[in-house]
């Protein structure tokens, strides 16, 4: 059930009414309703894995308590390792088994083996990459004594299964979400309205921007061999925008829905394309994943490699980003995608500028030429790297690049002949302009400080655009991860 569907509307309205009118008495009653509706939501999407989700919740809950109760260091580590094996094992089995099986088979082939093989038929449980990372982070935090374990199964279950973020994140942290579930949520009109605005903007990003881009991108990528270099280059542009609008749109809707229940989920995107270097970009792109990787992969790794100074640091960054790529799926394309991004950091590490975060056009209306130039170069780099993200395999990606940088790069791109791509370019300009105006705000459609007439004309305007240019969409790119 996607947020932009009538099914979801039919689901959320009764749940909201029950939440604020019937179950409002205490945090316990609110949590009961959230848990039941989250399980219904998950089962609606795919009931076969409900058992898996419940089992994961129970096991992580028990391990959290066990780790905290155990005093002896070695035994604590045993419980932590059990948790790591369980959670990582789930991911490996459901998400990566085929990949390793295929790799193993390929190696056998190299050595002349003629073992017959069938692909494993494993279906990916929805949201598994997201909820296992959340529970992994929880166990590590408990182990490091950064948080107390949850001793309330109901609360912990809501923490794991809360439906706005179960399918595609944000990947919540225990320290951010659990305390909110300990208290009774009180109804706040401004928070509610703010949530609705954020949903509206996410909706617009998804069904207008991402879906119109997809309509251009899909035919190009599906038949890239027949296209001119210039069309392929434009195709990567539209794909970069599609990917961003799709996932940031989803995230805005998820966070907005959270707010309708008085729960603040973490920010996932913070206008990432308004960055002047790659480190800055990753601080603003899929924030809940990158901060997770920072805390649980990069920091321990750079700590272990700390005696190797800058080389150790670079190795940690590249390894972390390969993992970021691989997290997306069991395909070499994602590994290469991550590797490229890791490598882009190397000049920054050498020049010592990795953490020198520049706020673009601070206090100004427009960026300087220098800032604009840096932003455009960074965007081009990311846009081209996204070819790995979209391609079916690495060979295809390189083939795609080969076709871009061929003689036909200077042909007039045929996709600009149709009115569709011109209209889409216009819509993208509007999208980028609104994000630019709101770049320093809490989210991309934070209108609370504007006069009433501006707010309402914005809503009406967005509705009109939705009506005229919105496309129905059954799924989101990040649902496959």
């Amino acid at each position: 059930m996607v947020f932009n569907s009538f099914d979801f509307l039919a689901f959320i309205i009764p749940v909201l009414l029950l939440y604020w009118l019937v179950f409002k008495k205490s945090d316990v009653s609110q949590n009961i309703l959230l848990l039941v509706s989250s399980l219904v939501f998950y089962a609606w999407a795919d009931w076969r894995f409900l058992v898996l989700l419940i089992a994961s919740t129970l096991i992580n809950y028990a391990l959290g308590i066990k780790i905290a109760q155990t005093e002896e260091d070695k035994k604590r580590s045993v419980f932590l390792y059990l948790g790591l094996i369980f959670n990582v094992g789930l991911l490996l089995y459901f998400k990566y088994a085929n990949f390793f099986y295929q790799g193993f088979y390929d190696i056998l082939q190299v050595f002349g083996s003629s073992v017959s093989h069938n692909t494993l038929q494993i279906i990916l449980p929805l949201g598994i990459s997201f909820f296992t990372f959340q529970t992994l982070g929880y166990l590590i935090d408990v182990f490091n004594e950064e948080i107390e374990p949850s001793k309330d199964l109901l609360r912990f279950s809501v923490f794991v299964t809360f439906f706005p973020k179960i399918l595609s994140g944000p990947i919540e942290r225990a320290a951010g979400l659990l305390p909110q579930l300990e208290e009774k949520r009180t109804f706040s009109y401004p928070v509610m309205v703010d949530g609705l605005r954020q949903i509206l903007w996410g909706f617009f990003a998804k069904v207008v921007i991402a879906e119109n881009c997809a309509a251009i991108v899909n035919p190009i990528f599906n038949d890239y061999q027949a296209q001119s270099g210039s069309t392929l280059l434009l195709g990567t542009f539209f794909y970069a925008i599609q990917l961003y609008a799709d996932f940031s749109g989803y995230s805005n809707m998820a966070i907005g829905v959270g707010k309708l229940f008085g729960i603040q989920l973490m920010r996932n995107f913070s206008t990432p394309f308004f960055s002047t270097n790659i480190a800055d970009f990753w601080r603003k792109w899929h924030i809940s994943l990158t901060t997770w990787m920072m805390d649980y992969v990069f920091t321990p790794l750079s700590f272990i490699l700390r005696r190797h100074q800058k080389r150790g640091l670079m190795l940690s960054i590249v390894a972390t980003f390969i993992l970021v790529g691989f997290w997306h799926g069991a395909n070499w394309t994602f590994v290469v995608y991550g590797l490229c991004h890791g490598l882009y950091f190397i000049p920054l590490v050498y020049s010592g500028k990795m953490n020198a975060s520049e706020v673009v056009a601070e206090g100004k209306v427009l960026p300087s030429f220098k800032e604009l130039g840096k932003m455009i170069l960074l965007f081009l780099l990311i846009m081209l790297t996204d070819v790995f993200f979209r391609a079916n395999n690495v060979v295809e990606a390189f083939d795609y690049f080969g076709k871009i940088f061929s003689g036909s790069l200077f042909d007039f791109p045929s996709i600009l002949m149709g009115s569709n791509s011109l209209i889409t370019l216009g819509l993208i300009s509007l999208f980028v302009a609104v994000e630019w105006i709101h770049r320093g705000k809490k989210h991309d459609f934070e209108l609370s400080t504007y006069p009433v007439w501006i707010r309402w004309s914005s809503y009406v305007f967005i509705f009109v655009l939705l009506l005229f240019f919105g496309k129905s969409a059954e799924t989101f790119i990040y649902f496959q991860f």
Partner: protein
Amino acid sequence: MEISTIKERISNVLTSILEHSNFEMHDELTAKDVDGWDSLSHMMIITKIEEEFGIRFKLRELNKLKNMGALVSLVQSKA
């Protein structure tokens, strides 16, 4: 070891890694207050402190450090 000696030596480490001494050593000092003390330089500072005092930290100990005062007492407990 004397607290004041530890503080002085940590201060020297910071100056040598960050290449400036625009900070004042006090117990409430945090990385955020010091120019250039970020995730990148942090590991280098930590490594240098380990070498300076001939000690080894655990990641868990470092994660729990809240400010300079805590760092100084951690070093004191190990040196």
